[in-house]
């Protein structure tokens, strides 16, 4: 049975709108990390992780393969995850980074759409920790964590729903299991 061209023409705008909406919701939750480019050169340790698309699919596939209850829980917690970006910088001395760069990210996350979930301030190490969440309807579409200390900065951006409680609970149990690397990629 061949679909009529008229039907396809009618469905095309709907599909296009849906794609745009999903892309927009994803883009909205994305933090602009470009502001941190200048900090990277000053930091003594840099951790930069970008997981999205195919890499995320591969990682999820491993979570399914691993026969471990914690892995199953992690898989459950990140079931709807679209992407996760992590930037962490350690500095040898205090005041080596410009606080304005971090404040700019905080300002971006104060824009409509984001909700300031938690705000932690501590005089010890001049710690400032903020957690922001974004919801699309009733579903969580993004999480952002911004941490700044005298010698440390970390910005985390999660796109897509994620079980924060479960993730926090499993924090100490994310040990990486032993893998047997296959020599040849199975033919598909």
């Amino acid at each position, binding site marked *: 049975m061949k679909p009529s061209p008229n039907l396809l023409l009618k469905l095309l705008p709907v599909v296009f709108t849906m794609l745009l909406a999903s892309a927009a919701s994803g883009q909205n939750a994305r933090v602009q990390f470009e502001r941190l480019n200048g900090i990277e050169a000053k930091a003594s340790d840099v951790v930069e*992780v970008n*997981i999205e698309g195919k*890499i995320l699919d591969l*990682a999820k596939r*491993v979570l399914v393969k691993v026969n471990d209850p914690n892995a199953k829980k992690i898989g459950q917690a990140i079931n709807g995850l679209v992407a996760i970006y992590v930037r962490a910088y350690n500095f040898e001395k205090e005041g080596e980074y410009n606080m304005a760069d971090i404040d700019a990210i905080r300002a971006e996350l104060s824009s409509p759409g984001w909700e300031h979930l938690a705000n932690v301030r501590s005089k010890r190490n001049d710690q400032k*920790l903020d957690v922001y969440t974004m919801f699309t309807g009733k579903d969580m579409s993004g999480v952002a964590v911004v941490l700044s200390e005298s010698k440390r900065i970390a910005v985390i951006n999660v796109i897509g729903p994620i079980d*924060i409680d479960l993730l*926090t609970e499993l924090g100490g149990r994310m040990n990486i*299991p032993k893998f047997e690397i*296959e020599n040849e990629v199975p033919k598909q």
Partner: protein
Amino acid sequence: MKEADYLWDKSGEDAQLESLEAVLKKFAYAEIDPPRVSHAQSKPERSSPFDIFKFRFALAGLSVAATCTALGLYTFTRDGDNSEISFVDRTVQQKAANGLDSECPEPCAGTRVGKSDMSNTETDTSRRTTNSDLAVNDRAMPNVIKVSHTAGPKKKKKKSVRMIYRPVRPLPQVTTAVAVTREEADAYNKLMLALSITSDKLRIVKDKLGDTRR
């Protein structure tokens, strides 16, 4: 003529020759044992090509003797083991009789050793091990000692119980090894790193909130 005869066969007289003989008598031949000459002196010292073979032959003989001794010792030790095992079994019997065996506070199921048995088999120094006994022993000492029983005619030298000591085998290691491709492993490691950092920061918030509530 006389002179000539004396010189020839000592017949007749010859004063000159006799005087000469008297003077030279001390140098005359005497029938005594010849002087002993040492072997080294008698034979010129020379290296024989067979000497090295003799040494090797001696060495080979020594090796054979050592092997025979080792075999003899091994056989002797094995016989000694048997006697020791029977002693152990008697101890077990005694424990069972006194009810002190920690592993079998009551006489073990299938074990034909008890007070009455002890009285009956007082003279019988060796314990007969049944299949059920073996099972009990295996349960008590898994993977370490295996007890096997070979029953033979009574008149024969009895090898009632034989213990074979084996090294404890390590248990099969249970790992969560998963066969994945290199790309999958890399992706998984990255995701775990990202999630662990995320959960670490979220935990800080949770801990701070917990402290505030308290």
